[in-house]
């Protein structure tokens, strides 16, 4: 294929959700995945270098074009977007779920020292957290985990990209 890079750019552009290198290879057929990955890297670099209005980001296991940060205020104005604030309580709850998943509510409550019913419900509604299942202990408590949307919203490639949690020193030592 002659214009492989351009075609990959077009595919990522039209895709509504982040597009994985595997998916691109499947679409294109006789192409090596390594070439797809290399070209995606080139596209990302091109955007950076020419100071483009959009950047290629790796999120939730795929690639997606996103607007550059300093365009944010104008984009919000154009689209009439008024961000729904995530409360500090919900952010803390989200952090505990993200790092400790799969996790039950009792554990989140213990870490935060308060009841997290409210924040948890709001995170479920925002689809940043989901119910993964039930724990096989008495009372069958609900197990929570983060969603793919969580990765998309916070611009994370995958869970391993989470900022490192400060090491907890064991005081007993």
């Amino acid at each position, binding site marked *: 294929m002659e214009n492989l890079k351009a075609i990959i750019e077009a595919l990522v*552009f039209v895709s*509504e*959700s982040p597009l994985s290198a595997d998916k691109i290879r499947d679409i294109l057929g006789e192409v090596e995945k390594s070439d797809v990955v290399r070209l995606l890297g080139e596209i990302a670099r091109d955007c950076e270098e020419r100071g483009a209005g959009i950047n290629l*980001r790796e999120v*939730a296991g795929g690639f*997606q*074009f*996103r*607007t*550059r*940060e300093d*365009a*944010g205020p104008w*984009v*919000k104005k154009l*689209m009439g*977007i*008024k*961000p*729904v*604030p*995530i*409360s*500090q*309580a919900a*952010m*803390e709850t989200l*952090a505990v779920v*993200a*790092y400790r998943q799969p996790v039950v509510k009792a554990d989140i409550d213990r*870490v*935060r*020292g*308060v*009841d997290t019913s*409210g924040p948890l*419900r*709001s995170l*479920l*509604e*925002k*689809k940043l957290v*989901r*119910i993964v299942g039930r724990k096989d202990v008495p009372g069958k408590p609900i197990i929570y985990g983060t*969603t*793919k*949307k969580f990765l*998309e*919203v*916070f*611009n*994370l490639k995958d869970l391993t990209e*989470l*900022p490192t*949690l*400060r090491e*907890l*020193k064991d*005081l*007993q030592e």
Partner: protein
Amino acid sequence: MAYEIKLDIFEGPLDLLLYLIRKNEIDIYNIPVALITEQYLEHMEKLRSLNLDLAGEYLVLAATLIHIKSKMLLPVPEEEEGEEEPDPRAELVQQLLEYQAFKEAALSLAGRPVLDRDVFKKGAPESLSLAEGEEEVLVEVSLFELVEAFQRVISSLDKSDLLEIDMEKVSLADRINEIMERLAQEKDMTFASLLGERTDRRNIVYTFLAILELMKLRMIKAYQAGSFGVIRIFLAVEN
């Protein structure tokens, strides 16, 4: 949906304690329990005087602090060599450190380029839609929340309206059919507007019962945007 992160003063007793430790520039591994307990209790008093309803967790931590304080006042009994009495503060410190780590992680997460707040993808921000590849776990408005909303609607109505008795007999089945018809036309309606169409008690109650029944039958769904957002009623299936 787009997001913005808001900072509150205290997110709970541990947060208050961390604040006091920072304010006093105290080493978290060597907390002067007497001083901190005193300040903690003062703050609880302040919060109470602001008419803030303090959750039980604040009281629990106050009790824990007082307990640790008293333990530290007791003379340390002579122990056999090598056996050291654990620091009564150890457990609390561990908890504080853990909480602090997550608090920092939350800040760090919020500091990332957040979708629909800092960066944007093509097209309108999604609202209730799920990311591709994910099984939907419906989080609907609970009956408890519906009852709360019902009480809000009732209390916002004019009392005199409520006293009027509509002589027209309305059956639950009629109301169910009406609601289904309205929803088929309007696609979605707010809970308040569905209830508010009727101003007499009997009709409001029947409308509410009809909504509950339809929810139970999974003919309709109720969604709420945010914890105190407007409750919207949708048809569960389009005809």
